[in-house]
């Protein structure tokens, strides 16, 4: 056993310096390191993200400068800059944020994409295609993806019911946007709403007692 004369204690670690006072130890026998040597874990993904961030800043700034110099009347550089930002934020969120599960990540990713498309639509003179078609179409895509997950994860199919329920108010968003004039046609939105409602009802009715139990758990007070 090593001994620190300053602290007047024994040190079991196989070291030469006292961990408490950093003074040299009197070296003895019977020492052992009981913990693994944790090498710094290489975080390749985070490095790639940082490289991407740097490249995206350089490219974005170049595009903005070109935009100002050559076409100052049309601010087109907003679109690629937002696209670059979207890719970065999506990657950082999906790869770097452990607290959220894959379901939350998919939903956040899809709605960030909707926001990006709304922005692109706005910059290009707002023809309302983003609100009329893209938003409800992506909502339908999300509904289908959730249904797909219900079949894939059959043992826990009931755990997707709350998300299916959330998709109903989500598919009502275009109807709200209509009041603000951001949506001019509701045809696809009606289909999207119907899909959300029927997918939820289908899972709930066919699921029977287990579906009811799931909702009871989720809404317990």
């Amino acid at each position, binding site marked *: *056993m090593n001994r620190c004369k300053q*602290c*007047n*204690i*024994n*040190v*079991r*670690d196989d*070291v030469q*310096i006292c*961990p*408490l*006072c950093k003074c040299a130890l009197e070296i003895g026998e019977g020492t052992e*390191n*009981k*913990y*693994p*040597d*944790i090498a*710094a*874990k290489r975080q390749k993904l985070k490095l790639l993200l940082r490289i991407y961030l740097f490249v995206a800043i350089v490219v974005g700034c170049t595009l903005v400068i070109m935009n100002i110099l050559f076409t100052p009347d049309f601010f087109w550089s907003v679109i690629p800059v937002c696209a670059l930002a979207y890719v970065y934020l999506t990657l950082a969120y999906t790869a770097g944020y*452990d*607290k959220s*599960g*894959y379901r939350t990540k998919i939903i956040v990713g899809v709605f960030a994409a909707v926001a990006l498309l709304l922005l692109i639509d706005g910059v290009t003179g707002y023809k309302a295609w983003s609100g009329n078609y893209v938003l409800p179409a992506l909502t339908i895509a999300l509904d289908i993806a959730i249904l797909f997950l219900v079949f894939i994860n059959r*043992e*826990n199919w*009931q*755990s997707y019911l*709350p998300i299916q329920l959330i998709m109903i108010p989500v598919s009502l968003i275009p109807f709200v946007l209509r009041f603000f004039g951001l949506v001019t046609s509701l045809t696809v939105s009606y289909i999207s709403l119907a899909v959300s409602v029927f997918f939820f009802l289908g899972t709930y009715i066919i699921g029977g*007692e*287990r579906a009811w*139990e*799931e909702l009871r*758990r*989720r*809404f*317990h*007070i």
Partner: protein
Amino acid sequence: MAKDKKPKKEKTKKNPQKRREIRWEKLDNTAHLFPVIAGESMTNTYRIAAELTEDIDKDTLQRALDRVLPRFDLFNVRMRAGVFWNYFEENNKPAPKVREEDNYPCRFIVAHKNRSYMFRVTYFKKRINLEVFHVLTDGTGGFNFMRELVYQYIRLAHPDDFPEETDILSTETSMNTEDSFVRNYRQKSKKQYKTKKALQITGTRMSENKFGVISGYMDLNAVKEVSKKYGVSINTYFVAAFAYAIYMEYAHPDSKSNVRVAVPVNLRPYFDSVTTKNFFTVVSAELPAFEKDLTFEKALEYVKKSLGDQITKEHLEEIFSYNVSNQMMLISRLTPLFIKHMVMRAVYRQSALANSTTITNVGNIKLDERYEKYVTMMHAYLAVSTGQLTKATVCSYKGTMLVTFSSILKETAVQRRFFRQLSKDGIEVTIETNGVYS
């Protein structure tokens, strides 16, 4: 010759468990907070470890876990978010994979990883580690599970020594999962916890989620003798030594904040409970940091008085009753979870700095004598938290006392001061670390 009739295929249920109702449980009163505040920097995870006489075999440990886990409803769950509350739901995935330790202790347990379990089992050389997210249970519940895991491992590793026993549970193991907070709370209690900022242990943080562990081994009888000499309990002696070390290192005459050491108290003995869920509350011992030339003897007096005043059944009941009565109010029950989270975060931020540190005494760990010869030492320690960057855990096993400091600070001044005090009092101390300080 008549053809032999093919035997009718016996209709068997594929998995009867799938057909029955999914088991679910509400979180206990303290558990509501942990998912809100937990993250990489504040993991709310604690480790219990058993050191055996032989190197651990990974496959045997996995088999032991596979057998033990289904019997522990409390551990066999995943956490789900409801509209108003988080809750536990039966986890029908296989037991989490046993891994060789390859990271720092008490890392964050991510809800949707590790097969959605709220604990992990690792091993290194002769040591089995169980790391538990506090949302599941406190140290008592953790030991309850760890004991069975170790017993099962020993039985599988030494079948010749246990020829008749298979998966039996030991008689001291509890399977009770009642919420003893709700069962024992008293309505209309006043707020008991402090929010005034305490003197903080500050220093340089270690990089990259590093986590330092310093364990001090000492003879239990020597500690008993010293505390008897001072006329205090072992617990009071260690709390005072820790508080005094902080005072000596950080206090000065202009200090406006006191040294305040949080001491978790196991409520089971006071309320006749055998629950395996969380059932503890926290009291605190205080030293006036502005007082000049405070001696260790005087510090012992302060600690003895403040702990003595607080650790009574009535006071303990008052402390947890305030939180439980808030939880039981209809308005808080009907508040959506995300709003509750915002409120809890704000309240936690207010009270997190009210203590300088935490020291918890797990007590004397006893194993069944048939298994005791295979286990040389039991360990326990906590993760750090906001404002409490160094914490301590005390436990004893087979006549050896173990005080373990966990910290994310590079400096070890408090630990040094603590162990030097013990050494000055005549206690022979042997320390070991997890290697981050060398």
